[in-house]
């Protein structure tokens, strides 16, 4: 009978209860949506921040271990799968173009595209060996353009019998513009550099890792202690600004969520106060029929909590749609569904509605049946 009464009150008086339901559903939608974004934003922003370049570098440690790709791999293995966006190893050597000394970086140019996506290339990225990129400053001083075939010589003029000094003809596919020190180098494949200067160790490895500041710190500590021959370092300017922006964004989301919940509570409390006021005769009748104060509270609270539950279910579904919409519009990628958010949203909706109903429901018990049922 209790359930029949509260459902009948909600279903048969739906026009009245719709306002309260709408308030709860809107509140739950914002709550669910913003919390989904709150949880997913580090991932979204992490991906966004990867556009600002590598956030971790590996350098050779001071011991005698050889710093090559095999050594680097032992460090990479400490990073969770799926977190690593790209790894670009760099080896810097001096070569000559038009008899002018130039610093050449041997690297994996396909990986550079992922670790340094902010590079502006006038031309194309190299797709195979014997193709290279030239920094803007070098291109200007040596009058190089995309498409030029350039003879790149090894480091010395001596040992003319050494085949390294015959040089390699490499085509410039593009000019690198970054506004930074990258414009002072030329970039070729590791194989081309080895052809010119012979085998050698890496100087630095740039890594782009999609992870939070805490995760990055953890990786650095693990690699430092467990990967021999590697000194990992975080690129502070990237990781710090990332965590600062994330912190501010999450604080904003938290604040908006809190404000929305308070507004929802006020709206539900106002609606329930109006509901109690317009049902004073019914409350008086129930008391006249022998309902105790506890029964009256239980019934009105039951209505409120049922409303909260229904609003919570609606809100968690609509919240995901809302979060998806925001994510697609702001981050241009879809959001991950958080299954735990469904019960949490429903519970919070019920809790908020319960709190909002407390005062109006308590007020309902003060109705004097003799007064409200008085005849004309």
């Amino acid at each position, binding site marked *: *009978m209790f359930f029949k*009464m509260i459902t009948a009150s909600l279903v048969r008086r739906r026009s009245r209860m719709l306002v309260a339901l709408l308030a709860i559903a809107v509140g739950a939608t914002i709550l669910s949506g913003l919390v989904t974004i709150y949880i997913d934003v580090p991932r979204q922003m992490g991906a966004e921040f990867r556009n600002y370049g590598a956030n971790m570098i590996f350098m050779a440690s001071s011991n005698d271990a050889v710093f090559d790709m095999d050594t680097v791999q032992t460090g990479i293995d400490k990073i969770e799968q799926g977190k690593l966006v790209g790894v670009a190893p760099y080896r810097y050597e001096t070569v000559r173009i038009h008899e002018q000394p130039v610093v050449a970086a041997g690297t994996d140019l396909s990986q550079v595209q992922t670790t340094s996506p902010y590079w502006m290339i006038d031309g194309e990225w190299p797709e195979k060996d014997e193709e290279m990129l030239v920094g803007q400053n070098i291109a200007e001083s040596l009058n190089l353009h995309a498409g030029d075939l350039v003879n790149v010589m090894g480091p010395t003029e001596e040992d003319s019998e050494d085949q390294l000094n015959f040089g390699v003809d490499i085509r410039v596919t593009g000019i690198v513009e970054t506004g930074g020190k990258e414009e002072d180098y030329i970039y070729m494949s590791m194989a081309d550099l080895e052809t010119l200067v012979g085998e050698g160790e890496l100087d630095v490895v740039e890594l782009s890792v999609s992870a939070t500041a805490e995760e990055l710190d953890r990786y650095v500590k693990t690699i430092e202690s467990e990967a021999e021959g590697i000194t990992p370092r975080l690129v502070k300017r990237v990781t710090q600004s990332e965590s600062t922006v994330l912190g501010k964004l999450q604080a904003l989301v938290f604040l908006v969520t809190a404000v929305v919940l308070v507004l929802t509570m006020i709206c539900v409390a106002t609606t329930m106060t109006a509901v109690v006021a317009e049902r004073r005769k019914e409350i008086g*009748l129930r008391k*006249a*029929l*022998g309902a105790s104060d506890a029964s009256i509270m239980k019934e009105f609270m039951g209505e409120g909590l049922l409303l909260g539950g229904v609003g919570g279910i609606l809100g968690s579904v609509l919240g995901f749609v809302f979060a998806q919409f925001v994510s697609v519009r702001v981050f241009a990628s879809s959001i991950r569904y958080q299954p735990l958010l469904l019960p949490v949203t429903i519970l919070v909706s019920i809790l908020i509605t319960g709190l909002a109903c407390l005062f109006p429901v308590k007020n309902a018990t003060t109705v004097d049946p003799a007064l409200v049922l008085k*005849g004309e």
Partner: protein
Amino acid sequence: MSLLELRGISKIYGDLKALDNINLSVENGEWTAIMGPSGSGKSTMMNIIGCMDKPTMGEVLLDGVDIAKESAKNLTAIRRDKIGLIFQQFHLVNYLTAVENVMVAQYYHSLPDEKEALEALARVGLADRAKHLPSQLSGGEQQRVCIARALINHPEIILADEPTGNLDEANENIVLDLFRQLHEEHTTLIVVTHDPEVAEVAQRTITLEHGRIKSDEINKMFGRN
């Protein structure tokens, strides 16, 4: 021992004496009408007998228990167990069907029993209207649902406050016929009315004026009309 006994009851609001030293006994199975003009104290007396108010002084003995001394919580329990209320404006819960309205009284009293509630509605001639909402019922039908609700828990006293005040003559007669049936079944009825025609079908008529009993008469024509 009388079922209900009022001893020296007064109800005072500031300078106003709504009831002034009322002494009254109602026997089990008696059909009593309480008459009087507006402000004579009828409603105040009904509220006190119906456990919805307390007298300023005096004793109200219901089944030998002085309800004037009971707590609000106990008064609620007494009202639930011993008193059936019939109102002038019916006071049905507008979003519950006729049978659900009857079951509400069962719910607060003990356990809702739809079969029993349907039987109560059948008794007042509304078996076919059980699933209708109050807004789909006429005034007379709503009053009969109200009577079925008052009867459902087998109360010791039925208190009716202007039960025909909002009804036309045809429905008034239906309600009065139901009261006759209840009286024949030895139900104690106390009916507040300002309508002499309703009062004169009762066994006994008490007339109030300025909070005092002006007259207390046995209806000599009782049972003949």
